[in-house]
């Protein structure tokens, strides 16, 4: 089960401070990169809840993000709903879709679960790609951002939108912690360790998995809504399985099942992408090599490696203190 420790709090504070500093001082390009990181961070938090804490490695979270984005776009731009109502409806729809996918896939494990979620993702992608109402290959444009003028915030300004995304990410992180610490989170931890034992404890395992997958999907949908508002245009590419694959890479790169790790991974991935793509069009190769190095190092991603180093240092300190104490005792006995 998820717990905060000194290292996690420190990294979290550093990340928040860096994001806030960037949001307040960066120019247009810097703000765009920051917003990209923040939206990706929301998506990978969603995936970490399902994959890292529930063992449900999903290849349809990109599609769920796309469902959120398209639902918001259609409801606000075409159905004429106000953006807040369209946003709430989009989240409810994405959560519902994810719950159904979770309920259907809950009885499968490992590679079969991955393939089943991939199939759902590809079905959504194909449907959106081919249905004229979604604009086909051309996508949909003219998507409005939320209107927060009542509280004096203009989200059409890049800086305000980046700060808004940061606030949403903070809220999502808090909600994720609450979910993982709730009864549902405890049950999920039990299911992750020993499904059969949880069944013998009277738990309907598929229901727990579906509920968690539904909540995770809703968070992915929120990332989609923000992505749609960010670019003000969406295309079927948002639902592609490669988006899910990329999100999985980010989670593994950052540290699966740590919540903080995926945030580190999102920042590292987007920064690497932008820095390397300026140098070479084959930036994927470099990211691939880094990912292989991380996986082969047997550390749980970048953050897992930091945690292991931190833990090792703390152990060495404790051992040193014990040795000192023993030496003192021996000397005093002598």
């Amino acid at each position: 089960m998820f717990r905060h420790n000194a290292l996690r709090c420190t990294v979290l504070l550093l990340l928040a401070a860096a994001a806030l500093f960037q949001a307040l001082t960066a120019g247009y390009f810097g703000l765009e990169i920051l917003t990209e990181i923040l939206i990706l961070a929301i998506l990978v938090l969603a995936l970490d809840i399902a994959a890292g804490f529930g063992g449900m490695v999903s290849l349809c979270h990109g599609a769920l993000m796309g469902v959120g984005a398209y639902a918001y776009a259609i409801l606000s731009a075409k159905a004429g709903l106000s953006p807040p109502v369209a946003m709430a409806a989009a989240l409810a729809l994405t959560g519902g879709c994810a719950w159904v996918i979770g309920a259907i896939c809950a009885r499968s494990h490992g590679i079969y679960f991955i393939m089943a979620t991939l199939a759902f993702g590809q079905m959504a992608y194909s449907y959106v790609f081919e249905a004229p109402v979604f604009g086909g290959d051309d996508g949909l444009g003219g998507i409005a951002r939320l209107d927060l003028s009542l509280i004096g915030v203009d989200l059409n300004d890049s800086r305000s939108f980046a700060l808004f995304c940061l606030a949403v990410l903070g809220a999502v992180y808090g909600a994720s912690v609450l979910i993982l610490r709730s009864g549902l989170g405890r049950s999920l931890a039990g299911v992750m360790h020993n499904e059969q034992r949880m069944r013998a404890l009277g738990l309907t395992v598929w229901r727990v998995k579906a509920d968690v997958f539904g909540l995770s999907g809703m968070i992915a949908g929120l990332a989609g809504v923000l992505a749609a508002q960010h670019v003000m245009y969406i295309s079927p590419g948002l639902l592609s399985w490669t988006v899910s694959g990329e999100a999985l890479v980010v989670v593994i790169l950052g540290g699966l099942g740590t919540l903080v790790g995926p945030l580190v991974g999102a920042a590292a991935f987007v920064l690497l992408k932008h820095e390397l793509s300026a140098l070479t069009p084959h930036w994927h190769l470099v990211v691939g090599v880094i990912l292989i190095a991380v996986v082969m190092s047997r550390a749980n991603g970048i953050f897992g490696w930091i945690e292991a180093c931190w833990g090792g240092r703390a152990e060495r300190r404790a051992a040193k203190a014990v040795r000192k104490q023993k030496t003192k005792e021996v000397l005093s006995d002598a």
Partner: protein
Amino acid sequence: MLELSGIESGYGETQVLHGLSLEAQQGRVLAILGRNGAGKSTTLKTIMGLLPLKSGKIVFEGKPIARQPYDVAKSGIAYVPETRDIFPSLTVRENLEIAAKRFGGAAPEWTMERVLDLFPRLGERMDNGGTQLSGGEQQMLAIARGLLMNPRLLILDEPTEGLAPIIVKLIHDKLQDLKAAGLPMIIVEQNFGFATSLADDVVVVGKGQAVWTGSAEEIRADEAAQHTWLGV
């Protein structure tokens, strides 16, 4: 209370139980004894729906038992497995709450307070992780978690497995308290002395069948049966 008639079960294509029959009665403790591989744990797993029932009948309180583990648990049977299955990433409190919140109901017979009265050691370890417990503490936690399911029948698989003699005595005393409180139990146990001093009735299982049935006094007096079926 619980009646097994001619049950056949096993692991995949390997059949372990060949028409086993036994009966656990209300308010009494039944010990299932037998050598390694006789089918004792398989019997418990089949009762709990963790292994498929290939043929035969299991009846609990007059009704055929459900075949899904969660339905069996909801029908009032708590199972404490040999492996204890403590969730390592959860604290003692969280391990207990998983059962308490699910089976608490309006006026539960077993509450967190009552369970901690029975096992005060757990009260001192509430915020420790599952992996930080000794074997004895894990067994106490597994039994406590079972009790918080407010069962009408408690099933224990090898409760003394791998425990120090002093802890075995403690577990024995606690189970004796539960017996005195009228909780029916089925215990699978290798420790002959432990099992027969706690049980009212005994079934000896050999090669997947009940080969000896009687009272605890009778098996203690029957040295031939002990020698033939238990190697004592």
